């Protein structure tokens, strides 16, 4: 056969066969690449029909909040509540979400978040259907509260919240710029708690740091006030949970009778004294592994999330997850303490709840709860224990009705993942149901909520300091976060705005300058994607208060040596507390600065909510800004 009849070489046919097979496989279709940040990855989006909250899902493996089911089952949902669970399809007439042994979990509960902006929408995208907020504005809480008992269609996680936290003047919690009531002594405790209850707080969060604690950065209430607050909360039938960051404070909080600690700590290894107190007093702990990991080791997000193309991450989450608390310079090894402490608490039977502290740097709403569970598993919790920490345990500790379990009568807040025994699959939910309505594969992309800016002028200040597009241009400084910098705006009738003031470096994040809010509101932000760059004119203010200053004045300024100075440009994306930064150099003549949108790596240009120009060098400053444009 080798030298075949027509003289073709014998290797021809095998080669052709191999080529044909290779060709065939190269022709087989691949999944569409998910290049845009908004799209869901979802190779299989099961049950994306969101027109009904009555259906059957099965056959699935169930994690019922406490354990995995031994056999595959069908779960019937009737009007947003779980009505039946059985081995065979209990209602063949209902729409069937036909699964194939994937795992159905109760909607997850994140026991430590800070819910503002679009947090609740982001959370539910990853199957986190209930969050416990540890500090937000009472207005947010009041708006969210009625929704908890609804079973109407919703894309948002339900919110329980402490509302305003209890902290000392200038203590932790005050640095975010929100004017909040503070407490200075035990005698104010009851009144303080009653006020919170009146505002709608579900529980009381107390910020406490022991006088004996190492590295005391901010003022704290004293131990007597702590005890008074805990007692007052209990008198008002509220849970009292305490923010601590070190062992001594934890011990004080435990002895004060707190119901729970909302952080773990890693400045030291946990000692028997504390373990015994926690155990004897039946105190739960929310170790917040994810945020501590991001502060110290900061490898988890890289390992589990950022390099996995199957995980749906928008630019905001992506940039948040990549951030760290690098300015604190915390050694990675401290995280070993965190793991050891969590393991020790687990071994002593102390109830651990999963909480992320999102959206702090290194965490993102929703997705970070998967990381939290993976970190708990890494610290030694079983998969079931980790899942309990995000379902039945927080539901029980915080008395959340109809949540945290898959049982008849429970709310159909559900999460379907490929394999519940592999916590990594939580990062890629197959489907999420909120109130029995499918959550994924149905919602319009988030970008559409932010208004799109049109090409051309955003603000030219020809008539006033009001922008042509957007909400406002205003002076801003760290004064709102208890800094001592000041900033003021002066509109000049020749059509520009002068920004002047004094930058003082005495706060953690000093700034003073001018902000531009491009959206209809701060929360909404604006979509810049119609253009490809933003431009604006800047100069150091002339000594004369006029754009038509005489040539001699300008010359004088030049010879005076005020040649150039630096401006800190900050671009804020919706949902992120950390801006993308650029440093600009300006001098005393108008210069146009242009910023390519494509070069903004940490910014979601479809939802920018603030652009801020701040002085960079301390002391008095004065600069002019004009012609903010969105360029093609």
């Amino acid at each position, binding site marked *: 056969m080798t030298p075949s009849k027509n003289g073709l070489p014998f290797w021809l046919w095998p080669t052709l066969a191999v080529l044909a097979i290779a060709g065939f*496989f*190269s022709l*087989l279709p691949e*999944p569409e690449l998910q290049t845009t940040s908004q799209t869901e990855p979802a*190779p299989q*989006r099961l049950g994306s029909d969101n027109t009904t909250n009555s259906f059957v899902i099965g056959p699935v493996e169930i994690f019922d909040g406490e354990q995995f089911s031994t*056999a595959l089952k069908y779960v019937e949902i009737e009007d947003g509540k779980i009505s039946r669970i059985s081995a065979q399809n209990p209602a063949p007439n209902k729409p069937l979400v036909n699964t194939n*042994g994937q795992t159905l979990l109760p909607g997850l509960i994140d026991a430590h978040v800070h819910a503002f902006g679009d947090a609740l929408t982001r959370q539910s995208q990853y199957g986190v259907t209930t969050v416990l907020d540890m500090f937000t504005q009472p207005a947010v809480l009041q708006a969210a509260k009625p929704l908890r008992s609804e079973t109407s269609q919703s894309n948002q996680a339900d919110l329980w919240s402490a509302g305003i936290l209890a902290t000392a003047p200038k203590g932790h919690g005050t640095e975010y710029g929100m004017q909040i009531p503070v407490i200075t002594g035990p005698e104010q405790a009851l009144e303080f708690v009653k006020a919170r209850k009146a505002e709608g707080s579900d529980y009381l969060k107390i910020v406490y740091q022991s006088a004996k604690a190492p590295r005391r950065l901010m003022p704290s209430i004293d131990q007597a006030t702590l005890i008074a607050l805990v007692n007052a909360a209990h008198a008002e039938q509220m849970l009292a949970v305490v923010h601590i960051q070190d062992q001594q404070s934890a011990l004080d909080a435990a002895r004060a009778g707190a119901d729970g600690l909302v952080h773990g700590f890693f400045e030291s290894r946990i000692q028997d004294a504390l373990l015994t107190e926690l155990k004897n007093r039946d105190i739960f702990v929310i170790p917040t592994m994810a945020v501590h990991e991001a502060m110290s080791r900061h490898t988890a997000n890289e390992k589990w999330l950022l390099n996995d193309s199957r995980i749906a991450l928008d630019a905001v989450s992506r940039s948040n997850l990549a951030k760290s608390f690098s300015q604190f310079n915390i050694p990675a090894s401290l995280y070993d303490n965190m793991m050891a402490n969590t393991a020790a608490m687990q071994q002593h039977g102390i109830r651990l709840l999963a909480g992320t502290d999102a959206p702090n740097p290194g965490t993102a709403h929703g997705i970070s709860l998967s990381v939290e569970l993976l970190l708990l598993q890494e610290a030694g919790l079983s998969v079931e224990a980790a899942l309990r920490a995000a379902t039945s345990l927080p539901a029980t500790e915080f008395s959340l009705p109809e949540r945290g379990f898959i049982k008849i009568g429970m709310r159909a807040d559900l999460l379907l993942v490929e394999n519940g025994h592999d916590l990594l699959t939580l990062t890629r939910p197959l489907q999420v149901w909120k109130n029995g309505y499918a959550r994924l594969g149905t919602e319009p992309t988030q970008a559409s909520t932010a208004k799109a800016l049109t090409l051309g002028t955003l603000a030219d200040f020809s008539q006033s300091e009001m922008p042509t597009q957007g909400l406002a241009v205003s002076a801003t400084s760290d004064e709102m976060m208890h800094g001592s910098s000041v900033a003021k705006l002066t509109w000049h009738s020749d059509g520009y705005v002068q920004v002047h003031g004094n930058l003082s470096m005495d706060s953690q994040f000093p700034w003073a300058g001018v902000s531009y809010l491009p959206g209809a509101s701060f929360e909404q932000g604006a979509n810049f994607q119609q253009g490809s760059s933003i431009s604006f004119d800047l100069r150091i203010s002339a000594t004369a208060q006029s754009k038509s200053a005489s040539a001699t004045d300008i010359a004088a300024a030049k010879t005076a040596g005020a040649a150039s100075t630096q401006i800190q440009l900050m671009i804020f994306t919706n949902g992120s507390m950390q801006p993308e930064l650029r440093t600009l150099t300006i001098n005393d003549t108008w210069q146009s600065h242009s910023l390519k949108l494509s070069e903004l790596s940490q910014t979601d240009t479809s939802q920018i909510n603030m652009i801020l120009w701040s002085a960079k060098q301390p002391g008095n400053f004065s600069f002019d800004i004009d012609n903010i444009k969105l360029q093609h």
Partner: protein
Amino acid sequence: MNSPLHQQVTESTAFTPWLSVRQRLQLLALEARMDALSLFRTPGFVIPSLIFPVMFYLLFGVLFGQGGQNVYLLASYGCFGVMGPALFNFGVNVANERTQGWLAMKQIAPAPVSAYIFGKICSSLGFALIIIVLLFSVAAIFGGVRLETHIWLGLAAVLMLGTVPFCLFGLWLGLTLSAKAAPATVNLIYLPMAFLGGLWIPIHLLPAALQQFAWALPSYHFSQLAYQVVGVKATATSWPHLLAILLFCLVMVALATRAFRQTTNTRQ
């Protein structure tokens, strides 16, 4: 003795190879080609083997499917599709060729048994490849299946390799069964094994006792490996299934070897 027909080669000893390497390679290629030719000239084998898996996939995966199952069913019917030719090409054809005396002729001629089995495995694999190409095409065109290239390739590889245990199983059957009994018996094994292994309907829809029983079936482990490749939920790890299949292969090799010894020594 000096006639032109007579073999002039000197006496070979047991240590000098009978055939050169090139000749041995040619022999292997020829055995494979001839077995494949013989196979493809049997319409009663080719048509059902090609049509059934594709038809099942179209029926249950595309026409009556609920959607979202297309990848899962592709893996299932892929397993089902490649198992058949392996079992039949070995089970029925070996029984036939043994009964016909064709095997005995080869054994008396200086034809290595290994080449015979190699040829049959090659033709079975070739046939499996055709089924894979057909099924993948149907899945891609009508079932809307989209997989990354390495997953397509991985599934094809598992399906191809997965035919080997069934080739061995078929070999044992072919060496044991009579030519008359073989087709019916192989069908009686193939179809229930496919069904109980979860290749027609998902295993978890079967009663619990049958689900337990599936562990004893190579078809079940085969399909679980295929599910793992495409990432449709299977049991957590693949090594128990790999182990089970390896064990099955070893048992079949032992049984086939024994049957082969018996058939060479008791032939009438």
